């Protein structure tokens, strides 16, 4: 008979065991009777000799080998029956648990997909990115095209590919529309290890200036523009006013830092963007795959060598420049990891409180079941067996809560991701997979065991008779300490979350009240795509932009308009080195300032205060002296305190002639309210769009943004503005429209999002802690009814009794708060490190949050205290 048949023959085996032992007893009895002993006495002696039939049976069952399985089934059935009989307890426990496990599972699902799961390319761990950095600025934004070409040629360890952002208007087939695009080097698809869904990737001979114009379109654009027609390959489309032949369709879902609709060869950019030959213009993104047989460390060694060579050969642009490679996954995910782990930690604390809560509920039940347990011990149940039963019960509860939690996670993970501020990297890959399920099941089992442990360890071994003899009430004392420990830990955990939420709130308030440096009200900013027809020569570009400004000014409600290549608190920046004397310092040692190219009215549009001198005017032209306006910071750094107006700045990127400083304006928090103080580049300068040299105009027109100050809310102006700016051929468009208020507020989105979630978690923790405190006190007070009865007969009045109960709870709460404050200080340090602009925990945070908790906790204790004070001493004493 194997285990399973044995298990299925359980009833039969039980019957046989019974029969065998009965036979034994009868034989023994009849033999004793034959010796002349009375039948009753004989039966007694036979039973004594055997040592108790039930105990013998238990031992026989133990040796069967299927015992644990039988017990598990039996215990599970028993547990289910018990829970069924106490629906209120079960529903509350399941609800608490499913919330805790659901929230934890959602966070883990996001972490799993974003941080843990490898990228969905072949051999993703061999993909890296190339980064350049200098001592002065730190990590640079990108790599310059000449550097990329040299590294690609000179190294043996990496297969390199590069890409950069592009975009423009597709005017045929279909209506003109602006699309995001990317310019990619020919090797990009093969480096990533993917191939187009249809057609082919670019050939190296297409990735050069002057080659025929070819394009790869995204899967989405193929569906939407060409109706998914298989014959799309070879057809043409008009992009940026130029006909392109479609040679491939990118795989569905393919992204390069966000969605892009059209891909064109990178080196063809040389015809429109002179920066492609400029070694100091670092704007390419480089992706590389380690060649077979090389490790990341090999690649880093070789990159360091190449960087050294380049620095010797091109000291003007490359001195002090170092190159290294990072795993691509790390680059894609960025610093999102810290936020995710922080949130997982916070939900983990909520789950922990939920566990403590259920543990105290279960413990209260276990204590009231002590007599039942004692009876079962007397009937032959072993300690291990009872402990196992207790744990099975809590594991069943844990798994039940876990199952509900997974359902909860399943429905809420996508809303949660949609709710994430800004874009969560790899968001489209987030789903629940087996790893998440394993996590959820383990979390629920661990929770089950965690909250089942305390009641399970209370299973008595000795002193059974005492328990049986004693009234149920007199045995409760021993559990009081454990119950207090539960209240203390719940309170402490709630304090941690409350103080963290308080710190975040304090931080957010402090950051929101910072002056952004400009007037945020009634200003809108948008990117703008000029008609491709006007891009053919520099004069036309200038005229087209002037036309846009003139038209925009005519729209009712528009007060002033300007163009700018950089909008404060929006993505995108341009940092340029500058110097204050004609002899430059060693390359890459000079200070760096954020440079914005703007038109005349920019200061009015943004409401930036002019401190000294003047802003730009019509006399600042291409043929007049180059001028710049600088901010307080730059004035301070470059020239000491006063009178920077009239001084000169040497800015290598703007040519050999130094620029005259004509004015000083206020500092703008370019990098966001929170991040600006920590950013490396804090000096700012402005230069006039009118002085941008002709060869650069085509490129600048692709990056200029449109900004307007309005007299009415900007949203009311947007539609008329769109109509007015469509241009003669109707192919100009405003896109990525923001109000400055939105940009300012989204610069704090991360802090606000964390505050919201921590607030919710802290609220949950507070609620759970209060339920826990209420439950424990109600239980402990219930145990003390006879004692209170005695006190009252001896002269205590209701107020004394309330004081007694509240005093008891106050002690627990204050110990919890004390422990919690210490833990919160530690948690505050973690927050300080992970959240930018975080204010350290200060007394006011504690002064606001702690009373909330204490009041809530006292409120929870008030109900049991009141009930205790209304005890009728006579009834209480009779209960004894």
């Amino acid at each position, binding site marked *: 008979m194997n285990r399973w048949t044995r298990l299925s023959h359980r009833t039969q085996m039980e019957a046989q065991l019974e029969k065998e032992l009965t036979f034994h007893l009868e034989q023994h009895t009849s033999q004793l009777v034959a010796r002349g002993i009375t039948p009753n006495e004989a039966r007694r002696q036979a039973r004594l000799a055997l*040592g108790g039939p039930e105990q013998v049976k238990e031992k*026989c069952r*133990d040796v069967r080998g299927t015992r644990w399985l039988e017990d598990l089934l039996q215990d599970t059935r028993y547990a289910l029956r018990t829970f069924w009989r106490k629906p209120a307890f079960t529903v509350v426990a399941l609800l608490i648990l499913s919330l805790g496990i659901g929230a934890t599972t959602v966070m883990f699902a996001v972490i799993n997909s974003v941080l843990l799961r490898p990228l969905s390319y072949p051999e993703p761990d061999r993909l890296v990115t190339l980064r350049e950095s200098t001592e002065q600025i730190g990590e640079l934004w990108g790599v310059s095209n000449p550097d990329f070409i040299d590294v690609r040629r000179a190294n043996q360890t990496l297969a390199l590919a590069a890409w950069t952002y592009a975009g423009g208007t597709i005017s045929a087939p279909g209506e003109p529309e602006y699309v995001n695009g990317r310019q990619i080097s020919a090797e990009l698809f093969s480096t990533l290890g993917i191939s187009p869904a249809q057609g082919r990737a670019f050939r190296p001979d297409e990735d050069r200036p002057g080659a025929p114009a070819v394009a790869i379109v995204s899967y989405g654009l193929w569906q939407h523009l060409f109706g998914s027609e298989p014959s799309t390959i070879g057809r043409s489309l008009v992009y940026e006013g130029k006909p392109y032949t479609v040679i491939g369709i990118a795989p569905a879902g393919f992204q390069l830092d966000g969605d892009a609709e059209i891909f064109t060869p990178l080196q063809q950019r040389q015809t429109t963007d002179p920066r492609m030959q400029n070694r100091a213009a670092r704007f390419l993104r480089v992706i590389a795959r380690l060649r077979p047989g090389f490790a990341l460390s090999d690649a880093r060694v070789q990159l360091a060598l190449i960087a050294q060579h380049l620095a010797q050969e091109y000291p003007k642009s490359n001195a002090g420049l170092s190159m290294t490679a990072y795993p691509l996954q790390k680059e894609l995910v960025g610093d999102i990891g810290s936020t995710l782990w922080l949130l997982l930690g916070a939900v983990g604390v909520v789950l922990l409180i939920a566990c403590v809560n259920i543990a105290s509920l279960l413990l209260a039940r276990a204590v009231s079941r002590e007599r039942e347990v004692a009876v079962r011990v007397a009937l032959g149940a072993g300690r291990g067996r009872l402990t196992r039963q207790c744990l099975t019960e809590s594991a069943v509860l844990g798994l039940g809560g876990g199952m509900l939690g997974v359902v909860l996670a399943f429905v809420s993970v996508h809303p949660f991701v949609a709710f994430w501020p800004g874009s969560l990297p790899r968001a489209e890959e987030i789903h629940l997979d087996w790893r998440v399920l394993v996590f959820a099941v383990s979390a629920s089992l661990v929770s089950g065991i965690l909250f089942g442990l305390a009641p399970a360890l209370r299973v008595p071994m000795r002193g059974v008779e005492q328990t049986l003899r004693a009234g149920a009430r007199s045995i409760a004392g021993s559990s009081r300490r454990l119950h207090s420990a539960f209240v203390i830990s719940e309170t402490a955990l709630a304090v941690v979350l409350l103080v963290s939420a308080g710190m975040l709130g304090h931080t957010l308030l402090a950051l929101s009240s910072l002056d952004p440096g400009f007037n945020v009200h009634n200003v809108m900013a948008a990117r703008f795509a000029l008609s491709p027809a006007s891009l053919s020569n520099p004069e036309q570009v200038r005229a087209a932009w002037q036309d846009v400004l003139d038209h925009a000014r005519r729209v009712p409600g528009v007060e002033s308009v300007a163009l700018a290549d950089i909008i404060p608190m929006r993505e995108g920046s341009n940092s340029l080195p500058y110097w204050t004397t004609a002899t430059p310092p060693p390359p890459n040692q000079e200070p760096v300032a954020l440079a914005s190219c703007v038109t005349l009215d920019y200061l009015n549009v943004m409401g930036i205060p002019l401190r000294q001198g003047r802003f730009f005017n019509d006399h600042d032209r291409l043929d007049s002296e180059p001028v710049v306006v600088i901010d307080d910071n730059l004035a301070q750094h470059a020239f000491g305190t006063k009178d920077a107006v009239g001084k000169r700045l040497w800015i290598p990127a703007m040519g050999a002639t130094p620029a005259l400083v004509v004015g000083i304006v206020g500092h703008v928090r370019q990098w966001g309210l929170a991040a600006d103080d920590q950013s490396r580049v804090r000096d700012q300068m402005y230069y006039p769009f009118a002085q941008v040299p002709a060869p650069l105009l085509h490129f600048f027109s692709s990056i200029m943004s449109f900004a307007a100050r309005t007299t009415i809310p900007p949203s009311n102006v947007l539609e008329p503005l769109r109509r007015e700016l469509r241009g003669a051929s109707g192919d100009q468009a405003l896109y990525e429209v923001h109000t400055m208020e939105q940009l300012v507020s989204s610069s704090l989105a991360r802090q606000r999002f964390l505050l919201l979630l921590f607030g919710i978690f802290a609220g949950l923790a507070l609620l759970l802690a209060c339920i826990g405190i209420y439950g424990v006190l109600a239980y402990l007070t219930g145990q003390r009814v006879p004692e209170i009865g005695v006190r009252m007969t001896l002269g205590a009045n209701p107020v004394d009794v309330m004081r007694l109960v509240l005093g008891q709870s106050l002690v627990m709460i204050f110990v919890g708060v004390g422990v919690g404050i210490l833990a919160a200080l530690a948690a505050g340090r973690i927050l300080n490190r992970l959240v930018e602009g975080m204010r350290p925990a200060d007394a006011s945070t504690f002064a606001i949050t702690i009373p909330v908790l204490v009041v809530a906790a006292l409120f929870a204790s008030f109900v049991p205290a009141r009930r205790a004070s209304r005890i009728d001493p006579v009834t209480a004493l009779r209960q004894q």
Partner: protein
Amino acid sequence: MAPAKSDLPQGTLDLLILKVVAFGPVHGYAIAQRLEQVSRGVVQVPEGSLYPALHRLENRGLLAADWKETETGREAKFYRLTRKGHKQLATEAADWQRLIDAIGLILGMADGGAR
């Protein structure tokens, strides 16, 4: 006063059961009685451990059991030795004999040393 009964050395109950069952199919009560008689009351055989031991040996495949009628016409569970049980009995008995010899030798040697 009756001589004090010793406890059964650890692990020997199984051996004794195997030996008793080796004489032919026999039910639990008879095994208990036989053990009592054979040991002449010197060794205490805890009846409470007898049945768990029988079930354990059955589970290990050393014993097999059938339900048969006794002489008095009652149905009882009769245990018999399986082939594996026979082998086990032989090895365990041999082991036991060796152990006794060795202990005897040691005790004898101590005597010799004193002489």
